[in-house]
């Protein structure tokens, strides 16, 4: 297990991970209650459901699963009194390469998730909820299921929760090894017992037609956990931790070539990439230099060491001006990374040093996407496989002069031509590796 630093790094602010990896902290309900558990739920029951939705909006909580959609806005698409059943499905299908935060919440602090979920359900008039856990977390499924039973026995779930008159049932649903099920409409198809082919948009949100064609919210584990803390802290204090439009803390999962890989919970926008690598994570291994960073899960476009970005910033006289920002000065928040042409995504930061071969790395990712394409849309089913075949051949036999051009052509013809965002996810690595490291492809031509 990755353990947290015994005392938080000055850049860290542990809200979600406050009790995780703490000696003596167990996933049972007695431990949770001894640490102030379910107090936020009691507070939420003194509020009106609409007030809770407004609070989450005011907190500027963005989804922590990868797409970064504002959670309060997502919730407000649900019409509280439309007479239809509503559902919340928690996306615990954590499988974006580079991301490893939800695993620790599920294994070590399941009641934090359940408490957040009851509050979310109360706010949106939901009485039946599922937690979709990938089957590669078999222990987590048992732990969460056990926590649900404990919560029910104590009156935090079931009928008339804490005398509020509000009813909620939660069940655990296990996936079966397919990355595509992290896409929210694929996840719903999977939960309906079908082949998990993502649904055609529109409707653009499951909040319109979701599980069983009823209004549904799909939120990531970490997102739901934040709800509990928004209730206890209030929207002002919570949102102040982050930047405007990106409130609270975000868990950065750092892997690859750093001295201290691990997960670090940091206020949104509270750290630059340079500080994250060289300060929080202890720097690169001895004698190495930085080569590349994938900042938000494997689908996020790669960044090259030494890159300089032109960022729009407000000058002293209030004008918007271009400011040159070197890679290591990039702030790790949603808007800065977007301005740098990539994304904060799921918070999975992969660091590569000068010993890494970028064609090899791209080939590894291409094989991942070729394996995980669900096969519904032709451009993605064929294209992801061809990209993988080409980079595998480059590794085995060397490149042909046209390979880089052909790879780009394949990728360009997937992105934007598929039902779900997997098309972009599988094209962006190829497009960005080719654009940022053309020399590595050229030198392989035989």
């Amino acid at each position: 297990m990755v353990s947290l630093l015994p005392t938080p790094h000055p850049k860290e602010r542990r809200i979600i991970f406050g009790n995780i990896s703490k000696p003596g902290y167990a996933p049972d309900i007695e431990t949770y209650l001894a640490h102030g558990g379910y107090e936020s739920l009691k507070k939420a029951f003194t509020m009106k459901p609409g007030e809770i939705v407004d609070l989450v909006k005011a907190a500027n909580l963005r989804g922590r699963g990868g797409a970064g959609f504002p959670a309060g806005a997502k919730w407000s698409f649900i019409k509280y009194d439309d007479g239809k059943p509503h559902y919340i499905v928690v996306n615990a299908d954590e499988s974006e390469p580079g991301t490893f935060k939800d695993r620790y919440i599920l294994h070590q602090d399941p009641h934090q998730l359940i408490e957040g979920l009851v509050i979310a359900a109360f706010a949106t008039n939901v009485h039946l909820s599922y937690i979709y856990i990938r089957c590669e977390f078999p222990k987590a499924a048992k732990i969460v299921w056990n926590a649900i039973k404990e919560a029910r026995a104590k009156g935090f779930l079931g009928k008339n929760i804490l005398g509020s008159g509000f009813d909620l049932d939660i069940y655990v649903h296990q996936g079966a090894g397919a990355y595509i099920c992290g896409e929210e409409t694929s996840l719903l198809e999977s939960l309906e017992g079908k082949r998990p082919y993502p649904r055609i948009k529109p409707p653009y949100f499951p909040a319109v037609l979701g599980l069983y064609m009823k209004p549904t919210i799909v939120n990531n584990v970490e997102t739901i956990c934040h709800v509990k803390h928004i209730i206890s802290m209030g929207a002002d204090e919570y949102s102040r931790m982050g930047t405007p439009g990106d409130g609270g803390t975000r868990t950065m999962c750092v892997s690859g070539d750093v001295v201290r890989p691990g997960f670090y919970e940091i206020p949104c926008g509270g750290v630059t990439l340079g500080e994250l690598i060289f300060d929080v994570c202890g720097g690169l291994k001895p004698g190495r230099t930085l080569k590349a960073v994938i900042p938000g899960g494997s689908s996020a476009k790669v960044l090259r060491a030494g890159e300089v970005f032109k960022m729009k910033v407000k000058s002293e006289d209030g004008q918007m001006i271009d400011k040159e920002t070197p890679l290591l000065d990039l702030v790790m928040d949603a808007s800065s990374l977007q301005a740098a042409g990539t994304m904060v995504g799921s918070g999975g930061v992969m660091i590569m040093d000068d010993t890494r071969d970028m064609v090899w790395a791209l080939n590894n990712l291409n094989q991942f996407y070729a394996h995980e394409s669900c096969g519904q849309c032709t451009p993605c089913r064929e294209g992801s496989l061809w990209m993988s075949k080409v980079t595998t051949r480059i590794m085995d036999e060397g490149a042909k002069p046209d390979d880089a051009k052909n790879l780009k052509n394949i990728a360009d013809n997937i992105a934007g031509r598929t039902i779900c965002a997997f098309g972009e996810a599988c094209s962006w690595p190829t497009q960005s590796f080719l654009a940022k490291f053309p020399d590595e492809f050229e030198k392989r031509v035989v």
Partner: protein
Amino acid sequence: MTETMTCQADAITPELLAEADELVSHYPVSKRSASLPLLHLWQNHFGFIDDSGVEWIAAKLELTPVNILEVVTFYPWFRRERAGKTIIRVCRTLACAMAGSYEVREKFCQSVGIDPHCHSHGFGEAPPTSSDGNFSVEFVECLASCGSAPVALINDELVENIALSDVPAIVDQYK
């Protein structure tokens, strides 16, 4: 050989039936939602899913067998053949590969007597399995533990920060 001749549905126990009914009750809106849970239950109990399993689950959920078969063949987790008693799933994806997971998989294969060049072709085929039936070794995609790479999921247990020299001792624990 006799084992493959017998059909799994003839060996359903009252306990298994009770568990199946319990799982179906978790989906009050649509029974079909119980297809994955019942397939997990079946595979955990019998080791793999034969035709009788597909048919039994379909009948239980008031579906046609193809509705279940198309699910079984989609998901990498489900098998139509028996695998080893211990299944070693080594993570293949980037962070683990950077930390040496390709060598780790090879070492696992060598330690349990499997040809490292063998790979499953998917579609329900069992992963490469040792001739004594004790071990299967396969690559899987990201196990979401990139900070402690390389990792493997051995049955229900996640093993982290695997050094090549640890592999024989890890295997011994499952012999």
